[in-house]
């Protein structure tokens, strides 16, 4: 299979497959920028919130850190919690000059304020002084003054007593407040959420089906372009005439089949709607599939006899009703509009010693219309004798060289619509008509 064939086949894809992309245009690109702007705004807000939160948190910590540096040498009477963590540090100065709670040093028994980072428990006995070099906060860790025993665990630390604000050592000290994590988080989320929501709504998420107002994929009609077909473009005609393939259409109670290539002169008239065309290849690969096609009536031809379909965008094809049964030859000629659609090339009399051939189209039809009362009837032509043969051609029905045969026993044989019709009239009338023919020329 060649790439050109695939490319051509893509050209025949249904409208419903093409609609979605067809609705994408330049405006979508502009929307993209708005989406980016929205995301940028959301990111800016997020950064602002984080900065504010960080300032609120670490700004105070920094200030406190400044005081902590001073607290390494606490003021007289200043009480320090044994572990200087945010949650356990006393926030108020002591009410009096004497500490209310003291952790005695294991060696000296004097109060030894310890400021230990939460994540790194200090064990000077094992780590020794070298830890100070590695720990950036080492200057905040007071050196043990003797043999160090086990430190008091944090859970054993006594609750700090609310200090007195009028203590002179804290007269200039900044009061520290416990950070309100819950309220900060609530504020943070409240600021983030609208931006985040808006950004997600505007962002084209992968896999999300795009809907376009006004597009109705299931409610479109097939299009078709019946023009001359470049040989290198389309090989539908070959396809249709390939004996391995059959095309059938059900309309009303009739089963319509495709017999010929694209219409040359027949004119599609009124659209009848989209209908399934059943396509089968049963000889080689046993392929079987269905394709929706637009169905039309054909100008001057009864829809009970034949219809036109569009298999590809460029061509119409005639489909003949296999179950078409005209009442008599008059209705047959009327349904198929034979006088307009079929040309008589000539009349031949096989019985004559010198077969004669006439090609007056109008006169030939006049003669044939004398049979209009003949009724449709089955007939075994093997035992009958053909007295008149009329050669026909039709660009509408797509045949050439077919014949109408008149038999001496009153039958008329038509080869039309892919099958044979026999009409019977009175043998006497047949003889009269034969004589009429012969005399007419």
């Amino acid at each position: 299979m060649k790439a050109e064939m695939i490319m051509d086949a893509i050209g025949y894809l249904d409208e419903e497959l093409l609609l979605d992309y067809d609705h994408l245009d330049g405006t979508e690109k502009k929307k993209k920028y708005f989406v980016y702007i929205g995301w940028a705004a959301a990111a800016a807000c997020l950064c602002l919130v984080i900065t504010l939160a960080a300032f609120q948190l670490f700004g105070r910590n920094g200030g406190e850190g400044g005081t902590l540096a001073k607290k390494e040498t606490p003021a007289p009477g200043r009480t320090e919690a044994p572990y200087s963590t945010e949650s356990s540090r006393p926030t108020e100065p002591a009410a009096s000059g004497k500490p209310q709670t003291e952790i005695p040093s294991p060696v000296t028994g004097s109060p030894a304020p310890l400021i230990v980072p939460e994540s790194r428990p200090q064990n000077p006995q094992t780590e020794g002084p070298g830890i100070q070099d590695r720990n950036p906060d080492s200057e905040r860790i007071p050196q043990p003054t003797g043999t160090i025993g086990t430190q008091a665990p944090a859970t054993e630390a006594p609750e700090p007593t609310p200090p007195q604000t009028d203590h002179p050592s804290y007269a200039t000290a900044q009061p520290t407040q416990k950070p309100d994590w819950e309220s900060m988080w609530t504020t943070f989320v409240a600021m983030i959420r609208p931006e985040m929501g808006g950004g997600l709504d505007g962002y084209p998420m992968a896999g999300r089906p795009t809907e376009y107002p006004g597009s109705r994929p299931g409610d479109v009609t097939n299009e078709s372009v019946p023009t001359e077909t470049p040989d290198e473009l389309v090989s539908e005609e070959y396809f249709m005439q390939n004996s391995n393939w059959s095309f059938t259409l059900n309309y009303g109670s009739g089963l319509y089949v495709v017999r010929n290539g694209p219409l040359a002169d027949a004119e599609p008239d009124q659209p009848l709607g989209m209908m399934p065309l059943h396509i089968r290849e049963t000889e080689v690969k046993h392929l079987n599939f269905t394709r929706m096609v637009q169905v039309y009536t054909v100008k001057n031809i009864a829809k009970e006899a034949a219809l036109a379909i569009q298999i590809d965008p460029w061509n119409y094809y005639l489909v003949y009703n296999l179950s078409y049964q005209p009442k008599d030859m008059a209705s047959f000629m009327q349904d198929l509009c034979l006088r307009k659609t079929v040309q008589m090339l000539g009349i031949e009399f096989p019985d004559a010693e010198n077969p004669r051939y006439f090609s007056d189209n109008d006169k030939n039809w006049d003669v044939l219309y004398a049979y209009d009362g003949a009724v449709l009837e089955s007939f075994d032509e093997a035992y009958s004798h053909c007295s008149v043969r009329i050669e026909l051609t039709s660009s509408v029905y797509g045949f050439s060289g077919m014949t109408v045969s008149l038999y001496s026993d009153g039958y008329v044989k038509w080869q039309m619509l892919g099958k044979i019709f026999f009409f019977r009239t009175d043998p006497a009338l047949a003889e009269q008509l034969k004589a009429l023919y012969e005399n007419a020329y």
Partner: protein
Amino acid sequence: MMQDEAIVELYWQRDERAINETEMKYGKYLLKIAENILLNREDSQECVNDTYLKAWNLMPPNRPGVLSVFLKRITRFVSIDKFRRRNTSRQKASEYTIALEELRECEYAEDSMDAHVDQMYVTECIRRYLNTLPMEKKNIFVGRYFYMDSVKDIAGKMHLSESNVKVQLYRMRQDLKAYLMKEGGIEL
């Protein structure tokens, strides 16, 4: 801008304003498709004019449901036809030629599918294959191989990166080849 139904009605009434309205509404889109195929402004404009003429001849009896797709399909066929009639040795690499070269990855030997199988069946297979894809992939495929848009244009329309579009197209070509080979001998 006139609505599509009104434009089609003008065609049916044999009103020549239909051509002007069509050109006003869809002229630039049709020209874009033709240029993607032909890479030549004058030839493309000629194809667009041929599109108007064919549309005029086709309506009636046609009454297309989606006029834009109807016109673009005509332009695509007319432009490809013109492309193939030109001297191929002098052709520059238009989006059509690039897309065609890409589709060569989907080619395979004839014996894997009956030689008689042609466009209608291939169309049916491609249609079925596309219906298995999510909307985004389907649109990328259609944009590239029906409308002949460049990868850059598709990426812009689909809000994707060019590399993402290229990767998806490559994978779809591989999948399509496998799908065509598989479906070639199986009753659908």
